[in-house]
């Protein structure tokens, strides 16, 4: 009997081993390799000897590395407030059943599920220097708005930001709306009968209810805006012109596959690992606090 119990207790290993094998191979192995690669000398895709922290020194003395980090930061501080406030705005009014709310609920869902590559591609063809949007702007007398959206280093990053906002505002809306629908609607009706304005209802009922999910949405956005931007950048600007729209993730990519320097690529990759680690820790902490 005792023996049987022991077998029962260790049965979990068979359930968990496959998933651990896959994740170790696809996640742990590359991260450890990145660490190893970053300490080596590289001669085009061939690994050489250890050369200490030379790769890190080159990364930290590269002004393009910091330009990429700065671009990440600009994307984060412009996208997150708009996406959170926009999501709250849409979610609140759809929840309050403004005229046409069912239609809006359906339409705003579409950009969320469109593949990011497709969104990026269509925005690029529409916002081309000689593209249809610019032609229309010129025709209706707004020629000064007809800028070179992706080809001008002053605007390229902001064109990407605009695209990201357009695609992700519905995502936060769905998150917030899902939470709002768990609230008893009679609370709102009671507040309305008591003469509370829309703004007061929003401030004193919705926001406290949504506090945790707003935190989660911010962390999720932080993670996707540092680690999952490649598709947008690759399709829309390839990081250019120059490095004007390169982000950390893209910096890692061009160093590996354009300049073929795995050392530099891995050393900058380590910074991304550290940032991700910090954000994941933050996410777990937020979630834990919510469980209490």
């Amino acid at each position, binding site marked *: 009997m005792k023996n049987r119990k022991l077998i029962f207790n260790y049965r979990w290993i068979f359930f968990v081993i496959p998933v651990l094998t896959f994740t170790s191979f696809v996640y742990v192995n590359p991260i450890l390799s990145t660490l190893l690669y970053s300490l080596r000398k590289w001669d085009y895709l061939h690994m050489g000897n250890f050369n200490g922290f030379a790769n890190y020194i080159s990364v930290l003395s590269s002004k393009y590395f910091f330009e990429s980090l700065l671009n990440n930061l600009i994307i984060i501080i412009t996208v997150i407030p708009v996406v959170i406030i926009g999501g709250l705005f849409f979610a609140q009014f759809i929840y309050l059943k403004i005229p*046409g709310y069912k239609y809006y609920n359906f339409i705003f869902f579409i950009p969320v599920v469109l593949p990011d590559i497709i969104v990026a*591609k269509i925005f690029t063809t529409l916002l081309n220097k000689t593209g249809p949007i610019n032609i229309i702007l010129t025709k209706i007398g707004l020629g000064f708005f007809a800028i070179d959206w992706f080809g001008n280093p002053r605007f390229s990053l902001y064109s990407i930001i605009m695209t990201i906002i357009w695609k992700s505002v519905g995502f936060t809306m769905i998150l917030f709306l899902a939470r709002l629908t768990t609230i008893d609607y009679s609370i709102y009706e009671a507040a309305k009968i008591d003469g509370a304005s829309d703004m007061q209802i929003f401030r004193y009922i919705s926001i406290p209810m949504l506090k945790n999910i707003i935190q989660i949405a911010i962390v999720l956005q932080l993670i996707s805006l540092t680690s999952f931007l490649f598709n947008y950048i690759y399709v829309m600007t390839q990081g250019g012109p120059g490095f004007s729209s390169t982000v950390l993730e893209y910096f890692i990519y061009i160093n590996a596959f354009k300049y073929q320097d795995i050392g530099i690529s891995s050393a900058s990759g380590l910074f991304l690992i550290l940032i991700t680690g910090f954000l994941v820790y933050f996410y777990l902490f937020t979630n834990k606090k919510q469980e209490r």
Partner: protein
Amino acid sequence: MKDNKINITIIDKIKRAITQLVFISYSVTVLFFMAILLITPFRSPRDVARGIITIPNSFTFINFINIWKGGFSLGFKNSMLFSISTCIVTLIVGGLAGYAFSFLKFRLSRALYTFVFSCMFISIMLISIPLFMQYKNLGLINSFLGVLIIYVGIRLPFTVFIFKNFFDEFPKSIIEAAKIDGINDIGILTRIVIPLSKPVTITVILFNFVAVWTDFLIGLLFLQKNENVIVMLRVISIFQGGISRTAPLSIGYAGLFLVTMPAIILYILGKKYYVEGLTLGSIK
């Protein structure tokens, strides 16, 4: 007093009008985008050449016929194979792990789950570079099985996360009753848990299928032969080859259409499951 009330209603009306204006403006941009995506592929190349934003004067399937013959069918087949295989493997492997993390009590449970869960947030770009170097040395670039392992590995953390959270809310009393009746782990899994897990299975299939179907990065790095091409890569390469007379913009849009439609139709039909996937675990 009366004046005051009138003022409030006017301000209210203005506020409502502004709100509607914001809603309408955003939904117009979405409708405009969708109109471009849905109409352009059905216009003749010459018609599209007049400009994408013009009143269409043609209706044709020629773009779809041309792109299908021009190698897209192969990409379609490959992507389908990758998506379906990934779904099957992740369901089995992820479902088992989710079951264990939720039902079986063992000391490392929490730590191992946190580890698998955290992998979900690691940049695909980051892991792709070392994997690319290793695959190159092992000669696994362009290998179906090699790439499938990567797809499965990438999709597993999410799958485990969804399953675990679903099982956490599973009625435990049924399991207890089954245990008392002497049914073992495997029996509980196959006779009780699996039959009751239809919604979570649909959610997982939905997300994993679309994620692999619309993948670009892994295909870009690991599938470099023409016969291994996946749909998204095929479409983007049409645009990158430069728009010309033999490959007009309308063909590129036919490709965008063919890639997007399966994904968006699945999501719209399964919106309930999509929202469930987003909110399982993050909202309780």
